[in-house]
């Protein structure tokens, strides 16, 4: 079944706290390798195809790094 939603993670804002990772019921998010200016290995949208646009990840992000579309 195709993605019914999409997110965008603000690379520079992310602090790599990892809270969004387990929050996503579809396990779409992972912590990346690239380090941002803050010195954090920001999270990235690893599995876009599974995203439902439920926005749970965005709700869980303390730094409001995630935007969600449906």
């Amino acid at each position, binding site marked *: 079944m195709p993605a019914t939603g999409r997110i965008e993670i603000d690379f520079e804002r992310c602090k790599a706290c990892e*809270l969004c990772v387990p929050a996503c019921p579809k396990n779409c998010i992972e912590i990346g390798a690239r380090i941002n200016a803050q010195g954090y290995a920001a999270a990235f949208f690893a599995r876009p195809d599974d995203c439902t646009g439920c*926005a749970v990840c965005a*709700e869980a992000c303390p730094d409001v790094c995630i935007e969600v579309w449906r």
Partner: protein
Amino acid sequence: MKTEGKDRFKRQVFSRPKSLVDVKSHFCPGCHHGIAHRIVAEAIDHFGLREKTIGVACVGCAVFLYDYIDVDVAEAPHGRAPAVATGVKRAQPDKFVFTYQGDGDLAAIGTSEVIHAANRGENISIIFVNNTTYGMTGGQMAPTTMLGQKTSTSPYGRDFRKDGYPIKMAELLATLEGTAYSARVATSTPAQIRKAKEAVRKAFDMQIKEMGFSIVEFLSTCPTNWGMKPIDAQKRVLGEMSEYFPLGVYKERKQADFL
């Protein structure tokens, strides 16, 4: 990247609230202060209060409230936010006035101010972030620190024989006649976050309806001073913390005239 997203999925279902200034926060990774800030901003947007709000910042990790919430903000001395808010509200009863305080700020040095603001039925709203420690100053013991919890000033763990029990402010304040609304929430699961938003809206609505004093206690995290990964910090909130500090609504006034 935005365009990319827009092409297939037109409807944005989650975005930063208008009243939350679009800047990087100084909070540590995974700190729930960020979530509480967002929820407050959302509630301000919900009621369209931004232009008639005066916020009162505490001294603590939330001292920079004025950098993040797009409203007028007064800085209060440590613990005195409810007194400053009283001064603002008495001078401008038509404005919306809230404080945002930590547990050291509200439950320790600010005890008297919050209790008497509540007892007067001061028509203000209080966001109380309980992370069981003094975050900003490096994780010392707070009145809310759990029994046995090791902090930089309770290196042997909090012992009730010496320091007493963690104080339950939501319950304590609920016993006062002037309190219109008192609830304790957490933000460690999507469901909890939903409940927390409801609680903050209820609290703000009490002020709008002039029912008196309202407070929402957030069980929050301090990964840095707890020495935990953010995810484990959340687990602590879901575990021992909410066991000792039960979530729920402790008081909710129904009609305005409380004689």
